[in-house]
């Protein structure tokens, strides 16, 4: 056990929680209309509560517990039985098992929270609760198991995902797209502009995400060591490059550099470097950031409009697209000197192929399971709010609250 490593992982754990609340709550909250901001905030807040309990009761055992043929964890660790202050040999040899479990809990929390962006402003709160519980059980836990469990089958093939490009961002981003399509467009979408109601909230939330992401990426080293520092440098390089790229591209394409563009570009860079930050050089990280910034812009500003689905806050366009790109980028840019793995540019074709397999498996799995879960929950209680409630707004109809008073 090492006190420095433990201190860093505990700190990083708190930083990752900061990403969901208040980071994501404000990032998404600012992007919706005044009548729906509280619905976003409560969804982000309640995800923290529901998934924390789910994780300690069963989720952690399914994801990281002793493996059944590399597919899923058994139930030995339910209720955190056998998880304690002593380190576990496979999950951070120098930190308490409790610290690893807590760090991973924050990842399990933010992943379903990211999907809120796709179904914002139109999903029933009750349906949301049931859906995320099911999703955490049959999508997140298995995927985390396959990639990160010591005996997971995808990890066993050599698939690399340093901090969750696949497990967190592709799983949530792809599921988000499925949800946005199945749920249908918001009323009035395409006919009337739907403007963000408070962009300063979005900038605040986006900036908190950036800060918290150092816990996410550098914390994934599970030690206060050189690899953590490398991940931190890569994270900063990619994020700065992606934000700047988005702004420059839209300035050229639309005539104005926007603050929403800068923040969105930054998130695109953070997502793309997440799987790669433990395997690439700072200069490669810059390249990954630039390419991700441009790619996410293309997905959100050009392609989404042509396809016509209503991914309200671009959960797919940023997390799905950036996550897939970053996962493939590991297979291209990984370098022996930075984390001991190699990619295409170092002549390793096999790694690139394995990363491709990782993407295909995660995308197919997320699509299939989200489709099935949607059908189940929709059949039981209905996913979408009634039309009149959508018009009045979710804050008043789901929560019986208003964010802003007009008259005292």
């Amino acid at each position, binding site marked *: 056990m090492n006190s420095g490593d433990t201190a860093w992982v505990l700190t990083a754990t708190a930083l990752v929680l900061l990403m969901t609340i208040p980071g994501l709550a404000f990032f998404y909250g600012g992007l919706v209309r005044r009548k729906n901001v509280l619905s976003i905030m409560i969804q982000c807040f309640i995800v923290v509560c529901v998934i924390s309990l789910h994780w300690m009761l069963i989720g952690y055992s399914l994801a990281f517990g002793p493996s059944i043929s590399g597919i899923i964890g058994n139930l030995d660790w339910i209720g955190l039985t056998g998880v304690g202050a002593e380190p576990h040999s496979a999950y951070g040899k120098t930190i308490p098992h409790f610290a690893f479990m807590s760090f991973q809990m924050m990842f399990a929390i933010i992943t379903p929270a990211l999907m809120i962006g796709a179904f914002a402003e139109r999903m029933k709160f009750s349906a949301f609760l049931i859906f995320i519980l099911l999703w955490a059980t049959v999508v997140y836990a298995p995927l985390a198991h396959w990639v990160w469990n010591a005996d997971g089958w995808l990890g066993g093939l050599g698939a690399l995902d340093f901090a969750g490009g696949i497990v967190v961002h592709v799983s949530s981003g792809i599921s988000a797209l499925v949800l946005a399509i199945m749920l249908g467009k918001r009323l009035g979408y395409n006919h009337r502009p739907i*403007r963000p109601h408070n962009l300063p909230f979005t900038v605040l939330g986006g900036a908190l995400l950036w800060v918290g992401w150092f816990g996410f990426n550098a914390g994934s080293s599970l030690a206060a060591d050189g690899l953590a520092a490398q991940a931190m440098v890569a994270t900063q390089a990619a994020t700065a490059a992606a934000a700047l790229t988005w702004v420059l591209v839209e300035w050229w394409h639309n005539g104005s550099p926007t603050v*929403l*563009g800068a923040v*969105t570009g930054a998130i695109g860079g953070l997502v793309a470097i997440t799987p790669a930050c433990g395997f690439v050089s700072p200069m490669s990280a810059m390249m990954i950031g630039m390419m991700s910034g441009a790619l996410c812009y293309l997905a959100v500003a050009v392609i989404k409009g042509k396809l016509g689905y209503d991914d309200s806050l671009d959960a797919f366009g940023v997390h799905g697209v950036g996550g897939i790109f970053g996962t493939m980028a590991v297979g291209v840019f990984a370098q022996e000197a930075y984390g001991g793995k190699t990619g295409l540019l170092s002549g390793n074709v096999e790694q690139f192929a394995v990363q491709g397999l990782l993407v295909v498996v995660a995308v197919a799995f997320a699509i299939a399971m989200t489709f099935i879960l949607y059908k189940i929950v929709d059949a039981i209680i209905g996913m979408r709010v009634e039309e009149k409630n959508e018009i009045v707004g979710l804050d008043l109809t789901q929560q019986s609250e208003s964010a802003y008073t007009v008259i005292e």
Partner: protein
Amino acid sequence: MKLVIAIIQPHKLESVKKELEAVDVNLMTVTNVLGQGRQKGVTEIYRGAKEAGGLLNKVRLDIAVNEAFVEPTIAAINKGAHTGSVGDGKIFVIELAECVRISSGERGGTAIG
């Protein structure tokens, strides 16, 4: 009695207020409003989606005056808000049927000033 309604540029409120006070018109109601005139609003861009027709911020003044103050009020607003470009705003004058001061119950012309 007349009701003078003026729609002006928000940044001209201070100078209009000063001109009105100079002609002894001190009572007014001020509200933030949105609108568009000949300049047709603005285009906003969110994540690459252009949204034309965004309305511009304006300030509206509602001022009730007796007949003798109508022209000085119009002149003061004009002086304070005029720049000569589109978007300076408009002044509307309409007949006012009645005025009641709630604190004293006074009515008509004496209740206005």
